Protein backbone atom coordinates (compact mmCIF):
# COMPACT_ATOMS: atom_id res chain seq x y z
CA UNK A 1 0.00 0.00 0.00
CA UNK A 2 1.29 3.43 -0.84
CA UNK A 3 2.03 6.09 1.73
CA UNK A 4 -0.97 7.90 3.19
CA UNK A 5 -1.38 11.43 1.88
CA UNK A 6 -2.65 12.76 5.18
CA UNK A 7 -1.40 11.21 8.36
CA UNK A 8 -2.40 12.15 11.89
CA UNK A 9 -0.05 10.66 14.44
CA UNK A 10 -1.13 10.60 18.07
CA UNK A 11 -2.72 14.03 17.79
CA UNK A 12 -3.76 15.77 20.97
CA UNK A 13 -5.36 19.17 20.86
CA UNK A 14 -6.18 21.57 23.65
CA UNK A 15 -7.93 24.88 23.08
CA UNK A 16 -6.37 28.04 24.57
CA UNK A 17 -9.04 28.10 27.27
CA UNK A 18 -8.03 24.64 28.44
CA UNK A 19 -10.70 22.37 26.95
CA UNK A 20 -9.18 19.30 25.41
CA UNK A 21 -10.74 18.26 22.12
CA UNK A 22 -8.54 15.44 20.83
CA UNK A 23 -7.01 12.64 22.84
CA UNK A 24 -4.44 10.86 20.76
CA UNK A 25 -5.94 10.46 17.30
CA UNK A 26 -4.26 8.30 14.68
CA UNK A 27 -5.69 8.49 11.20
CA UNK A 28 -4.28 7.77 7.74
CA UNK A 29 -6.05 9.01 4.64
CA UNK A 30 -4.88 7.78 1.25
CA UNK A 31 -5.03 9.62 -2.03
CA UNK A 32 -8.22 9.06 -3.97
CA UNK A 33 -10.33 8.00 -1.01
CA UNK A 34 -13.74 9.33 -0.06
CA UNK A 35 -13.98 9.25 3.71
CA UNK A 36 -16.84 10.41 5.90
CA UNK A 37 -16.29 11.42 9.49
CA UNK A 38 -19.28 11.19 11.82
CA UNK A 39 -19.96 11.69 15.49
CA UNK A 40 -22.01 13.98 17.65
CA UNK A 41 -21.13 17.61 18.28
CA UNK A 42 -18.13 17.84 20.54
CA UNK A 43 -16.67 14.54 19.39
CA UNK A 44 -13.77 16.37 17.77
CA UNK A 45 -14.59 15.87 14.09
CA UNK A 46 -14.27 19.51 13.03
CA UNK A 47 -11.28 20.03 15.31
CA UNK A 48 -9.52 17.10 13.68
CA UNK A 49 -10.13 18.10 10.08
CA UNK A 50 -9.02 21.66 10.78
CA UNK A 51 -5.59 20.19 11.46
CA UNK A 52 -5.43 18.87 7.91
CA UNK A 53 -5.31 22.31 6.33
CA UNK A 54 -3.32 23.95 9.05
CA UNK A 55 -6.09 26.02 10.64
CA UNK A 56 -5.21 24.31 13.90
CA UNK A 57 -1.88 22.87 14.98
CA UNK A 58 -1.66 19.87 17.31
CA UNK A 59 -0.58 20.59 20.88
CA UNK A 60 0.97 17.13 20.94
CA UNK A 61 1.69 14.72 18.13
CA UNK A 62 1.89 15.67 14.48
CA UNK A 63 -0.07 15.83 11.26
CA UNK A 64 1.66 15.15 7.96
CA UNK A 65 0.22 16.33 4.67
CA UNK A 66 1.98 15.12 1.56
CA UNK A 67 4.78 13.81 3.73
CA UNK A 68 5.58 17.12 5.45
CA UNK A 69 4.40 18.25 8.85
CA UNK A 70 1.70 20.94 8.87
CA UNK A 71 3.77 22.80 11.43
CA UNK A 72 6.34 23.43 8.72
CA UNK A 73 3.98 24.51 5.95
CA UNK A 74 2.58 28.05 5.70
CA UNK A 75 -1.20 28.33 5.45
CA UNK A 76 -1.08 29.79 1.94
CA UNK A 77 0.78 26.76 0.69
CA UNK A 78 -1.46 24.29 2.49
CA UNK A 79 -4.54 25.93 0.93
CA UNK A 80 -3.17 24.76 -2.43
CA UNK A 81 -3.03 21.16 -1.25
CA UNK A 82 -6.01 20.90 1.07
CA UNK A 83 -9.17 22.84 0.26
CA UNK A 84 -11.75 23.43 2.99
CA UNK A 85 -15.32 24.03 1.90
CA UNK A 86 -17.38 25.87 4.50
CA UNK A 87 -21.04 25.32 5.19
CA UNK A 88 -21.93 28.97 4.72
CA UNK A 89 -20.62 30.53 1.49
CA UNK A 90 -21.56 34.00 2.77
CA UNK A 91 -18.51 33.81 5.01
CA UNK A 92 -16.20 34.05 2.02
CA UNK A 93 -17.89 35.91 -0.83
CA UNK A 94 -16.96 39.56 -1.14
CA UNK A 95 -15.92 40.37 -4.72
CA UNK A 96 -17.84 42.24 -7.40
CA UNK A 97 -18.09 39.37 -9.82
CA UNK A 98 -17.98 35.62 -9.77
CA UNK A 99 -14.84 35.79 -11.88
CA UNK A 100 -13.05 37.96 -9.28
CA UNK A 101 -14.22 35.70 -6.50
CA UNK A 102 -12.83 32.57 -8.08
CA UNK A 103 -9.56 34.20 -9.13
CA UNK A 104 -8.92 35.83 -5.75
CA UNK A 105 -6.94 32.96 -4.29
CA UNK A 106 -4.88 32.66 -7.46
CA UNK A 107 -4.05 36.37 -7.48
CA UNK A 108 -2.81 36.04 -3.90
CA UNK A 109 -0.43 33.35 -5.04
CA UNK A 110 0.76 35.61 -7.90
CA UNK A 111 -0.24 33.12 -10.58
CA UNK A 112 0.23 34.65 -14.10
CA UNK A 113 -2.86 36.30 -15.65
CA UNK A 114 -3.52 33.98 -18.57
CA UNK A 115 -3.25 30.93 -16.34
CA UNK A 116 -5.76 32.51 -13.97
CA UNK A 117 -8.25 33.00 -16.80
CA UNK A 118 -8.17 29.40 -17.92
CA UNK A 119 -8.23 28.02 -14.38
CA UNK A 120 -11.23 30.17 -13.42
CA UNK A 121 -13.18 29.07 -16.49
CA UNK A 122 -12.31 25.46 -15.84
CA UNK A 123 -13.43 25.60 -12.21
CA UNK A 124 -16.70 27.30 -13.06
CA UNK A 125 -17.34 24.74 -15.78
CA UNK A 126 -16.85 21.94 -13.26
CA UNK A 127 -19.48 23.38 -10.92
CA UNK A 128 -21.75 24.32 -13.80
CA UNK A 129 -21.69 28.09 -13.37
CA UNK A 130 -19.74 29.25 -16.42
CA UNK A 131 -22.73 31.27 -17.65
CA UNK A 132 -22.77 33.33 -14.44
CA UNK A 133 -19.13 34.33 -14.62
CA UNK A 134 -19.79 38.06 -14.68
CA UNK A 135 -22.68 38.07 -12.24
CA UNK A 136 -22.64 39.83 -8.91
CA UNK A 137 -22.26 37.02 -6.34
CA UNK A 138 -24.86 38.44 -3.96
CA UNK A 139 -27.63 38.16 -6.52
CA UNK A 140 -27.17 34.41 -6.88
CA UNK A 141 -29.29 31.81 -5.12
CA UNK A 142 -27.95 30.03 -2.07
CA UNK A 143 -27.08 26.93 -4.08
CA UNK A 144 -25.24 28.99 -6.68
CA UNK A 145 -23.33 30.87 -3.99
CA UNK A 146 -22.22 27.59 -2.50
CA UNK A 147 -21.01 26.47 -5.93
CA UNK A 148 -19.06 29.70 -6.40
CA UNK A 149 -17.34 29.11 -3.06
CA UNK A 150 -16.49 25.59 -4.15
CA UNK A 151 -15.19 26.84 -7.51
CA UNK A 152 -12.96 29.32 -5.66
CA UNK A 153 -11.45 26.46 -3.69
CA UNK A 154 -11.16 24.24 -6.80
CA UNK A 155 -9.27 26.98 -8.62
CA UNK A 156 -6.37 26.44 -6.23
CA UNK A 157 -6.28 22.85 -7.54
CA UNK A 158 -6.13 21.15 -4.15
CA UNK A 159 -5.50 17.43 -3.98
CA UNK A 160 -7.78 17.04 -0.97
CA UNK A 161 -11.20 18.52 -0.32
CA UNK A 162 -12.53 18.77 3.20
CA UNK A 163 -16.24 19.44 3.28
CA UNK A 164 -17.82 20.40 6.57
CA UNK A 165 -21.47 19.33 6.73
CA UNK A 166 -22.37 20.02 3.13
CA UNK A 167 -25.93 18.92 3.57
CA UNK A 168 -27.09 20.55 6.80
CA UNK A 169 -30.04 22.82 6.22
CA UNK A 170 -30.27 21.93 2.54
CA UNK A 171 -33.14 20.29 0.80
CA UNK A 172 -32.72 16.84 -0.69
CA UNK A 173 -32.15 17.99 -4.25
CA UNK A 174 -29.36 20.45 -3.42
CA UNK A 175 -27.75 18.11 -0.93
CA UNK A 176 -27.51 15.34 -3.50
CA UNK A 177 -26.28 17.74 -6.15
CA UNK A 178 -23.36 18.72 -3.95
CA UNK A 179 -22.53 15.19 -2.95
CA UNK A 180 -22.65 14.14 -6.59
CA UNK A 181 -20.27 16.96 -7.44
CA UNK A 182 -17.77 15.77 -4.85
CA UNK A 183 -18.19 12.23 -6.07
CA UNK A 184 -17.44 13.39 -9.61
CA UNK A 185 -14.35 15.27 -8.45
CA UNK A 186 -13.19 12.12 -6.75
CA UNK A 187 -13.87 9.75 -9.62
CA UNK A 188 -12.83 11.96 -12.54
CA UNK A 189 -10.05 14.02 -11.02
CA UNK A 190 -8.84 11.68 -8.32
CA UNK A 191 -9.35 14.21 -5.55
CA UNK A 192 -9.43 12.88 -2.02
CA UNK A 193 -12.66 13.90 -0.32
CA UNK A 194 -13.20 14.01 3.42
CA UNK A 195 -16.66 15.05 4.52
CA UNK A 196 -18.31 15.52 7.88
CA UNK A 197 -21.98 14.80 8.13
CA UNK A 198 -24.79 14.21 10.58
CA UNK A 199 -26.94 12.41 8.03
CA UNK A 200 -25.69 8.85 7.86
CA UNK A 201 -27.31 8.16 4.53
CA UNK A 202 -24.67 10.35 2.91
CA UNK A 203 -21.94 8.32 4.53
CA UNK A 204 -23.36 5.10 3.23
CA UNK A 205 -24.15 6.39 -0.22
CA UNK A 206 -21.01 8.32 -1.00
CA UNK A 207 -18.20 7.27 1.32
CA UNK A 208 -16.43 3.96 0.98
CA UNK A 209 -14.87 4.49 4.38
CA UNK A 210 -16.41 5.92 7.53
CA UNK A 211 -14.70 7.11 10.68
CA UNK A 212 -16.77 7.41 13.84
CA UNK A 213 -15.50 9.76 16.53
CA UNK A 214 -16.53 10.17 20.11
CA UNK A 215 -15.09 12.27 22.91
CA UNK A 216 -12.00 13.22 21.00
CA UNK A 217 -11.07 9.68 19.99
CA UNK A 218 -11.67 7.48 16.97
CA UNK A 219 -14.13 4.75 17.88
CA UNK A 220 -14.58 3.04 14.54
CA UNK A 221 -12.75 3.23 11.24
CA UNK A 222 -13.45 1.04 8.26
CA UNK A 223 -15.60 0.32 5.21
CA UNK A 224 -18.94 2.10 5.66
CA UNK A 225 -20.99 -1.08 5.39
CA UNK A 226 -19.10 -2.78 8.20
CA UNK A 227 -18.99 0.32 10.42
CA UNK A 228 -22.75 0.69 10.47
CA UNK A 229 -23.24 -2.88 11.68
CA UNK A 230 -21.37 -2.20 14.92
CA UNK A 231 -24.50 -1.18 16.76
CA UNK A 232 -23.04 -1.05 20.27
CA UNK A 233 -20.13 1.18 19.39
CA UNK A 234 -22.43 3.42 17.36
CA UNK A 235 -24.69 3.81 20.37
CA UNK A 236 -21.70 4.85 22.42
CA UNK A 237 -21.02 7.59 19.90
CA UNK A 238 -24.68 8.62 19.74
CA UNK A 239 -24.73 7.78 16.06
CA UNK A 240 -27.75 6.08 14.52
CA UNK A 241 -27.27 3.98 11.38
CA UNK A 242 -29.41 4.87 8.35
CA UNK A 243 -32.72 3.03 7.94
CA UNK A 244 -31.43 0.68 5.27
CA UNK A 245 -28.57 -0.52 7.46
CA UNK A 246 -30.91 -1.03 10.37
CA UNK A 247 -33.27 -2.95 8.16
CA UNK A 248 -30.50 -5.08 6.69
CA UNK A 249 -29.24 -6.09 10.11
CA UNK A 250 -32.70 -7.02 11.35
CA UNK A 251 -33.37 -9.05 8.22
CA UNK A 252 -30.14 -10.99 8.53
CA UNK A 253 -31.95 -14.15 9.54
CA UNK A 254 -33.94 -14.00 6.30
CA UNK A 255 -30.73 -14.22 4.39
CA UNK A 256 -29.95 -10.55 3.80
CA UNK A 257 -26.36 -9.52 4.32
CA UNK A 258 -26.03 -6.94 7.10
CA UNK A 259 -23.59 -4.53 5.45
CA UNK A 260 -25.92 -3.12 2.80
CA UNK A 261 -25.49 0.59 2.16
CA UNK A 262 -28.08 1.94 -0.24
CA UNK A 263 -31.72 1.52 -1.18
CA UNK A 264 -30.77 0.16 -4.60
CA UNK A 265 -28.41 -2.42 -3.13
CA UNK A 266 -31.11 -3.56 -0.74
CA UNK A 267 -33.62 -3.78 -3.53
CA UNK A 268 -31.28 -5.93 -5.59
CA UNK A 269 -30.50 -8.11 -2.62
CA UNK A 270 -34.17 -8.67 -1.80
CA UNK A 271 -35.00 -9.35 -5.42
CA UNK A 272 -32.25 -11.96 -5.63
CA UNK A 273 -33.41 -13.60 -2.41
CA UNK A 274 -37.04 -13.65 -3.49
CA UNK A 275 -36.41 -14.93 -6.97
CA UNK A 276 -34.17 -17.60 -5.53
CA UNK A 277 -36.97 -18.71 -3.23
CA UNK A 278 -40.03 -18.41 -5.32
CA UNK A 279 -39.04 -18.40 -8.94
CA UNK A 280 -41.53 -16.25 -10.86
CA UNK A 281 -44.49 -16.37 -8.47
CA UNK A 282 -45.80 -12.96 -7.37
CA UNK A 283 -45.44 -12.34 -3.65
CA UNK A 284 -47.42 -10.19 -1.29
CA UNK A 285 -47.29 -9.26 2.35
CA UNK A 286 -50.47 -10.33 4.04
Amino acid at each position, binding site marked *: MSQPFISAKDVHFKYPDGTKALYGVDLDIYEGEIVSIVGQNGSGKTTLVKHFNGLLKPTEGDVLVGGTSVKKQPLGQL*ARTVGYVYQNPS*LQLFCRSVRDEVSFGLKLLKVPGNEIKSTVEESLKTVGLLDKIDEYPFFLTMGEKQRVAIAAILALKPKVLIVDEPTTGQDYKMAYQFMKLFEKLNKEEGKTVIFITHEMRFSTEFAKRTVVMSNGKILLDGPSGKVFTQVDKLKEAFVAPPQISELAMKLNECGIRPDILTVDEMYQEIKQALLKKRGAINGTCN
Partner: protein
Amino acid sequence: MGTGSLAPSSSKVEFRKTIFGYTPKETPFSVLHPLARIMIVIIFNIPFFIINPFLNACFLLTVLIFYKIAGIPKAYLLKFTPFLFILTFFLFLSFAFFPSVWIQPPYKHVIFQFGFTYHYENFIASATMWVRWMSAIFGILFVLSIIDERDINIALKTLRFPYFFRFIVATALRCFFTFYYDAMQIIEAQKARGLDLDSMGMFRKAKYYAAVMVPLIMIELKKADEMADAADSRGYVTTFKSEEYKRTEYVGHDVVMKLHDKLFIVFAVTSLIAVIIARYLPGIGPIIKWIPDDPAFWTSLIQRVF
Protein backbone atom coordinates in the same frame (compact mmCIF):
# COMPACT_ATOMS: atom_id res chain seq x y z
CA MET B 1 -15.65 15.67 61.03
CA GLY B 2 -12.36 17.30 61.35
CA THR B 3 -10.58 15.63 58.44
CA GLY B 4 -8.64 18.23 56.59
CA SER B 5 -9.50 18.68 52.97
CA LEU B 6 -7.02 19.28 50.21
CA ALA B 7 -9.63 21.17 48.26
CA PRO B 8 -9.38 24.95 48.34
CA SER B 9 -11.54 26.74 50.88
CA SER B 10 -15.25 27.17 50.26
CA SER B 11 -14.82 30.35 48.24
CA LYS B 12 -16.54 29.12 45.07
CA VAL B 13 -16.83 32.51 43.51
CA GLU B 14 -19.68 32.90 41.10
CA PHE B 15 -18.76 34.76 37.95
CA ARG B 16 -21.01 36.70 35.64
CA LYS B 17 -20.53 38.21 32.22
CA THR B 18 -20.07 41.96 32.30
CA ILE B 19 -19.30 44.29 29.42
CA PHE B 20 -15.61 43.74 30.01
CA GLY B 21 -15.63 39.99 30.59
CA TYR B 22 -16.30 37.45 33.32
CA THR B 23 -15.91 39.00 36.76
CA PRO B 24 -17.13 37.98 40.21
CA LYS B 25 -20.83 38.48 40.69
CA GLU B 26 -20.88 39.56 44.33
CA THR B 27 -18.54 42.44 45.04
CA PRO B 28 -18.72 45.27 47.57
CA PHE B 29 -19.91 47.40 44.66
CA SER B 30 -22.98 45.25 44.10
CA VAL B 31 -24.87 47.19 46.77
CA LEU B 32 -24.80 50.19 44.50
CA HIS B 33 -27.58 50.85 42.02
CA PRO B 34 -26.31 50.57 38.42
CA LEU B 35 -26.58 54.30 37.93
CA ALA B 36 -24.47 54.88 41.02
CA ARG B 37 -21.90 52.43 39.73
CA ILE B 38 -21.71 54.31 36.44
CA MET B 39 -21.09 57.52 38.40
CA ILE B 40 -17.78 56.03 39.49
CA VAL B 41 -16.58 57.02 36.02
CA ILE B 42 -17.10 60.67 36.97
CA ILE B 43 -14.97 60.29 40.06
CA PHE B 44 -12.05 58.89 38.10
CA ASN B 45 -12.28 61.59 35.48
CA ILE B 46 -11.82 64.31 38.10
CA PRO B 47 -8.00 64.13 37.54
CA PHE B 48 -8.58 65.92 34.22
CA PHE B 49 -9.23 69.02 36.31
CA ILE B 50 -6.23 68.49 38.56
CA ILE B 51 -2.65 69.03 37.50
CA ASN B 52 -0.84 67.97 40.66
CA PRO B 53 0.62 64.54 39.83
CA PHE B 54 0.62 63.41 43.44
CA LEU B 55 -3.09 64.06 43.81
CA ASN B 56 -3.77 62.32 40.52
CA ALA B 57 -1.61 59.39 41.56
CA CYS B 58 -3.93 58.95 44.54
CA PHE B 59 -6.86 58.54 42.16
CA LEU B 60 -4.92 56.00 40.11
CA LEU B 61 -3.97 54.09 43.23
CA THR B 62 -7.58 54.12 44.41
CA VAL B 63 -8.89 52.67 41.18
CA LEU B 64 -6.27 49.93 41.28
CA ILE B 65 -7.35 49.13 44.83
CA PHE B 66 -10.95 48.98 43.59
CA TYR B 67 -9.89 46.33 41.07
CA LYS B 68 -8.41 44.30 43.89
CA ILE B 69 -11.51 44.67 46.07
CA ALA B 70 -13.82 43.62 43.26
CA GLY B 71 -11.64 40.61 42.52
CA ILE B 72 -11.30 41.32 38.83
CA PRO B 73 -8.97 38.83 37.14
CA LYS B 74 -5.59 40.32 36.29
CA ALA B 75 -5.65 38.55 32.93
CA TYR B 76 -8.16 41.05 31.61
CA LEU B 77 -5.98 44.01 32.42
CA LEU B 78 -3.02 42.33 30.81
CA LYS B 79 -5.00 42.15 27.55
CA PHE B 80 -4.95 45.94 27.50
CA THR B 81 -1.19 46.25 27.96
CA PRO B 82 -0.40 46.74 24.24
CA PHE B 83 -2.96 49.55 24.02
CA LEU B 84 -1.58 51.18 27.16
CA PHE B 85 1.96 50.99 25.81
CA ILE B 86 0.93 52.76 22.63
CA LEU B 87 -0.93 55.43 24.60
CA THR B 88 2.03 55.96 26.91
CA PHE B 89 4.37 56.25 23.94
CA PHE B 90 2.21 58.91 22.27
CA LEU B 91 1.73 60.86 25.48
CA PHE B 92 5.44 61.12 26.05
CA LEU B 93 6.06 61.81 22.39
CA SER B 94 3.52 64.63 22.24
CA PHE B 95 5.23 66.61 24.96
CA ALA B 96 8.72 65.81 23.69
CA PHE B 97 8.60 68.39 20.91
CA PHE B 98 6.08 70.90 22.17
CA PRO B 99 6.09 72.86 25.42
CA SER B 100 3.33 72.21 27.94
CA VAL B 101 0.92 74.99 28.92
CA TRP B 102 1.61 74.14 32.54
CA ILE B 103 5.29 75.06 32.49
CA GLN B 104 6.34 78.21 30.69
CA PRO B 105 9.41 77.92 28.47
CA PRO B 106 12.36 78.47 28.38
CA TYR B 107 13.12 75.07 29.83
CA LYS B 108 16.27 74.79 31.85
CA HIS B 109 16.91 71.21 32.87
CA VAL B 110 18.18 68.99 30.08
CA ILE B 111 17.94 65.22 30.32
CA PHE B 112 19.50 64.32 27.03
CA GLN B 113 20.26 65.68 23.60
CA PHE B 114 19.85 63.59 20.52
CA GLY B 115 19.31 65.86 17.52
CA PHE B 116 16.58 67.53 19.59
CA THR B 117 16.77 68.46 23.24
CA TYR B 118 14.64 66.54 25.74
CA HIS B 119 14.11 68.51 28.91
CA TYR B 120 13.04 67.40 32.35
CA GLU B 121 10.08 69.77 31.97
CA ASN B 122 8.85 67.82 28.93
CA PHE B 123 9.14 64.65 30.91
CA ILE B 124 7.29 65.79 34.00
CA ALA B 125 4.51 67.29 31.89
CA SER B 126 4.10 63.97 30.07
CA ALA B 127 4.17 62.03 33.32
CA THR B 128 1.51 64.27 34.81
CA MET B 129 -0.71 63.86 31.75
CA TRP B 130 -0.10 60.11 31.85
CA VAL B 131 -1.36 59.74 35.42
CA ARG B 132 -4.58 61.57 34.48
CA TRP B 133 -5.22 59.35 31.47
CA MET B 134 -4.43 56.17 33.35
CA SER B 135 -6.85 57.11 36.09
CA ALA B 136 -9.60 57.84 33.58
CA ILE B 137 -9.01 54.71 31.47
CA PHE B 138 -8.72 52.36 34.40
CA GLY B 139 -11.77 54.02 35.89
CA ILE B 140 -13.86 53.40 32.80
CA LEU B 141 -12.60 49.85 32.41
CA PHE B 142 -13.37 49.22 36.06
CA VAL B 143 -16.95 50.36 35.70
CA LEU B 144 -17.30 48.21 32.58
CA SER B 145 -16.19 45.24 34.68
CA ILE B 146 -18.90 45.69 37.25
CA ILE B 147 -21.88 46.39 35.03
CA ASP B 148 -23.57 44.33 32.37
CA GLU B 149 -26.09 45.21 29.66
CA ARG B 150 -29.01 44.91 32.05
CA ASP B 151 -27.41 47.42 34.38
CA ILE B 152 -27.03 49.89 31.54
CA ASN B 153 -30.70 49.44 30.70
CA ILE B 154 -31.69 50.01 34.34
CA ALA B 155 -29.44 53.06 34.65
CA LEU B 156 -30.91 54.59 31.49
CA LYS B 157 -34.41 53.82 32.74
CA THR B 158 -33.68 55.70 35.96
CA LEU B 159 -32.60 58.65 33.84
CA ARG B 160 -36.00 58.49 32.16
CA PHE B 161 -34.79 57.50 28.69
CA PRO B 162 -37.68 56.07 26.65
CA TYR B 163 -37.83 52.32 26.07
CA PHE B 164 -37.36 52.72 22.33
CA PHE B 165 -33.94 54.29 22.88
CA ARG B 166 -32.92 51.74 25.51
CA PHE B 167 -33.94 48.90 23.24
CA ILE B 168 -31.58 50.18 20.57
CA VAL B 169 -28.70 50.47 23.05
CA ALA B 170 -29.35 47.00 24.51
CA THR B 171 -29.58 45.40 21.08
CA ALA B 172 -26.38 47.13 19.96
CA LEU B 173 -24.55 45.75 23.00
CA ARG B 174 -25.95 42.28 22.46
CA CYS B 175 -24.88 42.31 18.83
CA PHE B 176 -21.44 43.71 19.47
CA PHE B 177 -20.06 40.39 20.63
CA THR B 178 -21.78 38.57 17.78
CA PHE B 179 -19.95 40.87 15.36
CA TYR B 180 -16.70 39.85 16.93
CA TYR B 181 -17.36 36.10 16.77
CA ASP B 182 -18.65 36.34 13.22
CA ALA B 183 -15.62 38.35 12.18
CA MET B 184 -13.38 35.64 13.65
CA GLN B 185 -15.28 33.01 11.69
CA ILE B 186 -14.90 35.00 8.48
CA ILE B 187 -11.18 35.43 9.04
CA GLU B 188 -10.85 31.69 9.47
CA ALA B 189 -12.95 30.98 6.38
CA GLN B 190 -10.79 33.30 4.29
CA LYS B 191 -7.71 31.49 5.55
CA ALA B 192 -9.08 28.39 3.90
CA ARG B 193 -8.79 30.06 0.49
CA GLY B 194 -5.27 31.25 1.13
CA LEU B 195 -5.84 34.66 2.72
CA ASP B 196 -4.01 34.39 6.02
CA LEU B 197 -4.80 37.72 7.65
CA ASP B 198 -3.40 36.77 11.03
CA SER B 199 0.12 36.47 9.69
CA MET B 200 0.08 39.76 7.77
CA GLY B 201 1.47 43.08 8.83
CA MET B 202 -0.89 45.95 9.62
CA PHE B 203 -0.64 47.65 6.23
CA ARG B 204 -1.11 44.49 4.21
CA LYS B 205 -4.07 43.55 6.38
CA ALA B 206 -5.70 46.90 5.65
CA LYS B 207 -5.49 46.21 1.93
CA TYR B 208 -7.75 43.19 2.31
CA TYR B 209 -10.22 44.74 4.73
CA ALA B 210 -13.04 44.20 2.21
CA ALA B 211 -12.56 40.44 2.52
CA VAL B 212 -13.79 40.69 6.10
CA MET B 213 -16.04 43.76 6.02
CA VAL B 214 -18.22 42.73 3.06
CA PRO B 215 -19.17 39.24 4.31
CA LEU B 216 -19.58 40.65 7.82
CA ILE B 217 -21.97 43.37 6.72
CA MET B 218 -23.97 40.96 4.55
CA ILE B 219 -24.28 38.42 7.35
CA GLU B 220 -25.18 40.99 9.98
CA LEU B 221 -27.74 42.72 7.76
CA LYS B 222 -29.46 39.40 7.23
CA LYS B 223 -29.37 38.73 10.97
CA ALA B 224 -30.77 42.18 11.69
CA ASP B 225 -33.69 41.47 9.40
CA GLU B 226 -34.36 38.16 11.09
CA MET B 227 -34.10 39.74 14.53
CA ALA B 228 -36.69 42.30 13.52
CA ASP B 229 -38.99 39.46 12.42
CA ALA B 230 -38.50 37.79 15.78
CA ALA B 231 -39.14 41.00 17.73
CA ASP B 232 -42.33 41.61 15.76
CA SER B 233 -43.44 38.03 16.29
CA ARG B 234 -43.24 38.57 20.03
CA GLY B 235 -45.49 41.57 19.99
CA TYR B 236 -42.97 44.40 19.97
CA VAL B 237 -44.37 47.66 18.71
CA THR B 238 -42.08 50.52 17.72
CA THR B 239 -43.87 53.67 18.68
CA PHE B 240 -43.27 57.05 20.13
CA LYS B 241 -46.79 57.17 21.48
CA SER B 242 -46.14 55.51 24.81
CA GLU B 243 -49.61 56.36 26.08
CA GLU B 244 -51.29 54.05 23.56
CA TYR B 245 -48.99 51.23 24.19
CA LYS B 246 -48.38 50.22 27.77
CA ARG B 247 -45.36 48.09 28.27
CA THR B 248 -44.35 46.32 31.49
CA GLU B 249 -40.76 46.64 32.57
CA TYR B 250 -40.10 43.29 34.18
CA VAL B 251 -36.37 43.39 33.71
CA GLY B 252 -34.91 45.30 36.62
CA HIS B 253 -38.27 45.86 38.31
CA ASP B 254 -36.77 44.83 41.62
CA VAL B 255 -33.83 47.23 41.44
CA VAL B 256 -34.70 50.35 43.40
CA MET B 257 -32.67 53.46 44.05
CA LYS B 258 -31.86 53.56 47.75
CA LEU B 259 -30.65 56.36 49.99
CA HIS B 260 -27.00 55.33 49.82
CA ASP B 261 -27.20 55.33 46.02
CA LYS B 262 -28.58 58.83 45.93
CA LEU B 263 -25.93 59.99 48.37
CA PHE B 264 -23.19 58.42 46.27
CA ILE B 265 -24.39 60.08 43.09
CA VAL B 266 -24.61 63.44 44.83
CA PHE B 267 -21.11 62.86 46.22
CA ALA B 268 -19.67 62.08 42.79
CA VAL B 269 -21.20 65.08 41.07
CA THR B 270 -20.42 67.54 43.86
CA SER B 271 -16.80 66.30 44.06
CA LEU B 272 -16.38 67.16 40.41
CA ILE B 273 -17.94 70.59 40.78
CA ALA B 274 -15.97 71.22 43.98
CA VAL B 275 -12.66 70.52 42.26
CA ILE B 276 -13.53 72.76 39.33
CA ILE B 277 -14.40 75.61 41.67
CA ALA B 278 -11.42 74.94 43.94
CA ARG B 279 -9.00 75.61 41.10
CA TYR B 280 -9.88 79.30 41.34
CA LEU B 281 -9.82 79.55 45.10
CA PRO B 282 -6.78 80.97 46.87
CA GLY B 283 -4.81 78.47 48.92
CA ILE B 284 -6.29 75.31 47.37
CA GLY B 285 -6.05 76.48 43.76
CA PRO B 286 -2.27 76.55 43.59
CA ILE B 287 -2.02 73.10 45.22
CA ILE B 288 -4.32 71.65 42.56
CA LYS B 289 -2.40 73.32 39.79
CA TRP B 290 1.06 72.68 41.17
CA ILE B 291 3.57 70.66 39.18
CA PRO B 292 7.16 69.83 40.29
CA ASP B 293 8.88 71.74 37.48
CA ASP B 294 12.30 71.65 39.11
CA PRO B 295 14.25 68.40 39.49
CA ALA B 296 15.69 69.84 42.68
CA PHE B 297 12.31 69.02 44.25
CA TRP B 298 12.99 65.31 43.88
CA THR B 299 16.52 65.44 45.22
CA SER B 300 15.39 67.33 48.30
CA LEU B 301 12.50 64.90 48.80
CA ILE B 302 14.84 61.93 48.69
CA GLN B 303 17.20 63.71 51.09
CA ARG B 304 14.39 64.32 53.53
CA VAL B 305 13.13 60.77 53.42
CA PHE B 306 16.52 59.06 53.77
